[in-house]
């Protein structure tokens, strides 16, 4: 069992009389000292909630006193060690180091992961994080995020950096409308600091502060070069609460061959996505489309149930009774979810709404397609990849156009101890065929240097010279071409010929990068290259 959350869960659940025995802010005795013996692990409960700085008062989530008790750093490290050994997906690949030789939770936690590499020589575990528990447990209205209403894409995080505008939220704050920013605009400076070349820490801090404002109402000055422009211009952006539109640009396209193809830009697996997706698929179903282009190039995932709904709305009846995704834990828990204690059962393809933003139990629309085109990039991650994998698991053809996805078939139960919430990979999702091994992502089949699992389709660089949803935009154009001919354009189809312009003129980006959406809690701009 995962002790911290589970223990608090149980404390809240037991009857009042039982609670009387455990109230008062947790026990007062420290965890027993444990001498480190390599390969021997005490139960994590031995060390749970034994904290250097015990929280006092009530846990805002449970309304009960925190279970924290006075302890030592070694107790917290021992908890991490035992918890990791119990639940980490690759626990057997963690080198068991003596926690007593570490001076902080953070430095020890960094060591509690596999050092193995993927086939493409990336770190197998690139998803190992912590968060302040109070910040993690805060809730916000779904779809309301702080930012500028501008989706940036970082093509290069180190000098010479390259940051461009990927898309504009339809509900961009009024203060930023006047900036008239469009997809493809390059950011040259933020608050006077050279974004492309700045190498000093103060400059990098300024850049990150501009990209990640700490509060609503902050103003930052950007110098941008619009697509096709020769001369930069200066705009001021103001941070605000932005209601994001997770599904955009829903429309149909009639190909030269006469086929009616549906298109939608699907950016986020949020609760509000449910109603937007129902509307979008209803629209396309009513229109009678015979193919769908699902644009998830900037979709980093989110609610897995939303992904399941999307997959059903694409494929329809053929999904009924099938596995969308099965969660697999480490080999200590082949049949039981170690966190919930329940029997592991597969998640099916949802055929009805889940009540996230549409009343629960409503039949979902569906296109009943036997194939789908997905537009992807390096930001296509996690739940978005589940859509691809789940459909392939039931032999729905997925045609991938774009670039390799991120490669995250994994997940975790965020777990608190002593005020820090730890994100450590605990499970892997597999499809109906039992496949879930794509740590290097999915890669279009004609990619020159394949990186991930090969999927039918075309390698095309993101095309910032056209609006998303424009039939001339590189990825969409390639998908439409492939729909008619089953042949990929010669790569890179998404690039326009370099314009014959003067020094400093706009050159269309021909690369793929990471989407920056909500601007909070990120530190994106780096001084130098880092492993990722």
């Amino acid at each position, binding site marked *: 069992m995962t002790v911290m*959350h589970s223990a608090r*869960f149980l404390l809240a*659940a037991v009857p*009042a009389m039982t609670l009387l025995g455990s109230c008062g802010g947790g026990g007062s005795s420290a965890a027993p000292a444990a001498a480190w013996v390599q390969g021997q692990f005490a139960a994590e409960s031995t060390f749970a909630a034994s904290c250097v700085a015990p929280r006092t008062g*009530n846990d*805002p*989530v*449970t309304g009960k006193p925190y279970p924290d008790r006075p302890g030592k750093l070694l107790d917290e490290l021992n908890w991490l060690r035992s918890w990791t050994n119990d639940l980490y997906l690759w626990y057997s690949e963690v080198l068991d180091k003596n926690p007593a030789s570490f001076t902080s939770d953070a430095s020890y936690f960094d060591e509690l992961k596999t050092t193995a590499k993927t086939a493409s020589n990336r770190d197998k575990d690139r*998803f190992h*994080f912590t968060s302040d528990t*109070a*910040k*993690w*447990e*805060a*809730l*916000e*209205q*779904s779809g309301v*995020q702080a930012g500028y209403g501008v989706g940036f894409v970082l093509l290069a995080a180190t000098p010479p950096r390259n940051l461009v505008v990927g898309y504009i939220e339809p509900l961009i704050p009024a203060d930023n409308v006047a900036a008239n920013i469009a997809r493809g605009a390059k950011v040259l400076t933020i608050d006077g600091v050279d974004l492309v070349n700045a190498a000093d820490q103060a400059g990098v801090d300024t850049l990150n502060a501009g990209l990640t404002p700490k509060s609503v109402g902050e103003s930052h000055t950007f110098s941008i070069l619009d697509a096709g422009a020769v001369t930069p211009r200066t705009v001021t952006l103001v941070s605000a609460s932005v*209601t994001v539109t997770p599904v955009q640009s*829903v429309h149909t396209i009639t190909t030269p061959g006469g086929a009616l193809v549906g298109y939608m830009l699907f950016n986020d*697996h949020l*609760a*509000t996505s449910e*109603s937007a997706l*129902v*509307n*979008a698929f*209803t*629209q396309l179903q009513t229109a009678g489309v015979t193919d769908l282009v699902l644009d998830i190039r900037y979709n*980093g*995932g*989110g*609610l*897995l*149930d939303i992904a399941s709904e999307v997959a059903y709305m694409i494929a329809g009846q053929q999904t009924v009774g099938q596995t969308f995704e099965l969660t697999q834990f480490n080999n200590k828990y082949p049949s039981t979810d170690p966190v*919930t204690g*329940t029997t592991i059962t597969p998640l099916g393809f949802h055929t009805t709404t889940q009540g*996230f933003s*549409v*009343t629960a139990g409503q039949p979902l629309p569906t296109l009943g397609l036997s194939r789908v085109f997905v537009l992807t990039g390096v*930001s296509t991650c*996690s739940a*978005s990849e*589940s859509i691809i994998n789940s459909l392939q698991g039931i032999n729905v053809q997925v045609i991938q156009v774009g670039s390799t996805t*991120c490669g*995250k078939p*994994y997940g*975790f*139960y*965020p777990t608190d101890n002593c005020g820090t919430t730890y*994100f450590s990979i605990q499970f892997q999702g597999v499809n109906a065929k039992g496949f879930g091994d794509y740590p290097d992502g999915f890669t279009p089949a004609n990619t020159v240097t394949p990186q991930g699992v090969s999927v039918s389709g075309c390698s095309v660089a993101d095309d910032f010279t056209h609006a998303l949803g424009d039939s001339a935009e590189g990825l969409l154009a390639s998908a439409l071409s492939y729909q008619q001919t089953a042949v990929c354009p010669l790569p890179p189809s998404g690039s326009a010929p370099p314009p014959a312009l003067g020094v400093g003129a706009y050159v269309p980006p021909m690369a793929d990068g*990471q*989407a920056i*959406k909500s601007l*909070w*809690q*990120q530190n*994106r701009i780096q001084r130098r290259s880092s492993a990722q």
Partner: protein
Amino acid sequence: MRPGPVTTAHRIAVAILAALGLQSLPACAVLADSPGTPAVIADATAESRVELARVIHEALGDVPVTLADDALTGGSLLSLEHALRRDPMGRPLNGRELTHPETFELFKRGPRCVLVQSRTGREWTLHHVQCVAAPVQAPQ
């Protein structure tokens, strides 16, 4: 079909269920047989926003919750999720989220506007909110 994980939302749920057995909650009641007609707030005011925030606070305890000023004006369902946190590459930290969002639904029941917590069925009458039947959603 799938068990829910033991995360914040579940701890909230269990804490509330436990609380229900321990103390009276005069401001709320268990869901009536007929919840009424799904509704939206017709004219959001500072007073209605304060009342909505107060009721959400009562339902969820001291967990910080950020609401938009136009909450429940465009639809009858209000969903709350963890404040989105992203990894250094800009992707959601938890891109494979197994939990369900916390949801509330607004109903018009006669002259009353009633907010119902979907997971528990607890409901609150909002005295400072004017609500009307939610429009039937049309395709985009």
